[in-house]
């Protein structure tokens, strides 16, 4: 399949990689490790943070899908249809 290359593609790949690593670090959440304060009265803060984190992960991938979608893969797969 065609290899995506060029400065634009590489820059986008680098930005996405950095964003994913930042999210990976944010997952460690050592700052609320011992804290049991309830959020909304019933969700311990360690759980509330990670629930919010799930939404952040969805936002990251939504941004990636719209900003760095690998369009070239569609063309490559179409070669199979042509055959």
């Amino acid at each position, binding site marked *: 399949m065609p290899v995506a290359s060029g400065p634009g593609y590489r820059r986008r790949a680098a930005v996405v990689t950095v964003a994913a690593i930042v999210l990976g670090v944010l997952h460690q959440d050592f700052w609320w490790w011992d804290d049991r304060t309830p959020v909304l*009265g019933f969700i311990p803060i360690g759980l509330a943070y990670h629930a919010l984190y799930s939404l952040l992960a969805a936002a990251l991938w939504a941004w990636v899908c719209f900003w760095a979608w690998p369009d070239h893969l569609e063309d*490559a797969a179409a070669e199979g249809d042509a055959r």
Partner: protein
Amino acid sequence: MTPLLIIVGYLALLLGLGVLATRLFRGTSRDYFVASNSIGPFLLLMSVFGTTMTGFALVGSTGKAFERGIGTYGLMASASGLIHAAVFFLIGIRLWAHGKRHGFVTQIQFFRARFESDALGYLLFPILVGLVLPYLLIGVLAAGKFVLPVTAGAFPDLFPNPGTRWAGGIPLWLTGLVVSLVVLTYVFGGGSRGTIWANTFQTLVFMCMGVLAFWLIANRLGGPENATKIGMQINDKGEAIQTHGYDRKAKRLVEHPTPRVVGRVTHPLSAEQVADIRENGNLRPHQARTVIDVEFDRRHPKTKATVGTFKREFGIPWLMFLSYMVIPLSVGMFPHLFQNWLTARRAKTFKLTVIAHPIFIMIVWVPCVLIGIWASGVLPVLPPDRISATLGAMVSTMIGDPVIVGLVGAGVLAAIMSSLDSQFLCLGTIFTNDIVLHRARRRDGDTARYDERRIVWIARAFIVAIVALTYGLSMWADKAGANVFDLAVWCFSGFSALFPLVFASLYWRRVTKAGAFASVIAAMAVWFYYFRESGFGGEYVLAGGLMPAALALAAGAVALVAVSLVTKPPSDATIDAFFPKR
């Protein structure tokens, strides 16, 4: 009896859906295996999500939260939200494109072509089948462990279930048999399309029923705030206490006149912890991730007499939390997910799956984890081999209405069956394509003696054999006291250890056949060593909480890079086929 009738009605509905899908079957093997690459965004999202969330998600997560607390969500759910979506984006779409371009329907076909090696296929085949099998067992076990407490009391003469707390409940062997037969029926007839339709329906059912169960249990416990407040506590004497219980007959929460002591910490509390308790109230080990070891009495399920003790570690060691992040990489190597990806109509079909998957995980896991920590305050302390019954016990104890119990029961079975079906289909597919048809091609030069109809019937025969094998093994695993969550983690660990192979095959031109062999052998050797150390499926962590999966993955990655760099690169033809220039 009512819950049982509702569950039976649900299973009949599922069979009807299977029959409908069979009518739309186009008669070709490609339609049977990958629905002729015709599936759109919504069906792909629901089927991929339904496939990745098995009994592990509902039954296992509730049990693990009951055992370890809120850290269960961070361990698997939020990490999976990030990493699963990343794998769908980085691996799934590329494999779909290769599959469509080269006509692959199985993972092994891809690896054989990419690494120019038949033998690699024969090496991967038993490993992939061997790792999917425990995943199948998880489903059958989880179904049985949920239905037993939910139907307790319904058939006291027929199923006395001596030695358990659930006299009259439907035993695991019967639930497992019925679930296996129902899944077999719609997979057998409808193939991939029937599986995807059933998955979509079942995913909708289990998501709605999970939220319904959460809301009803919260109400029974006096609202979510109160439910969290009454979770198990540890006082300044180091005693694990329950302040409340649930009166099943009166259907209400009752406060014990004096807190009930159910266990004690194994090490004296630190001065800091004692000061914290005096200032902020008792510790709540399920509501933070600080590690606390507690010893509990093991009681006889009927007489309640103490028959021994067991220890439980609450909280999550930091190194365990960190190293668990490699486990969601397993989705990159799931053979059934590979097949699911290939059903997509276009690359853009993946967008909705990539974006919505983390949100769906949150919708399913947050309620389950909360139910698990609430259970710590009102259920008897279940020993390690019984924690998989936590969700079933909460539903049957707290939700009195038999209609609702039946609906929630159907929801749990939906979650379980939506994974079983893809896995049964996948194993039938790889047996047919990677062994039977592959050998015919090697022997005769083509597969002319196998027409489309015959290929589909071979796959169906394999699926029947796999269902029978799974059922037999799950009965054995139950007798051996297998824990749904721990067994699942071993299965995922094995797949994640193989992740370097799939990643390198898509992104590194220089990776070689020898490097691929070295990676698979090194990863599986390390994995098997620790699997054996765990007693073949128990919870097992290394010093500081490090997960064996991290070491197995590292071994696979190092072997892959080191051996590839000193061996002959792949041919130009292969590089051109898998990395052509635009």
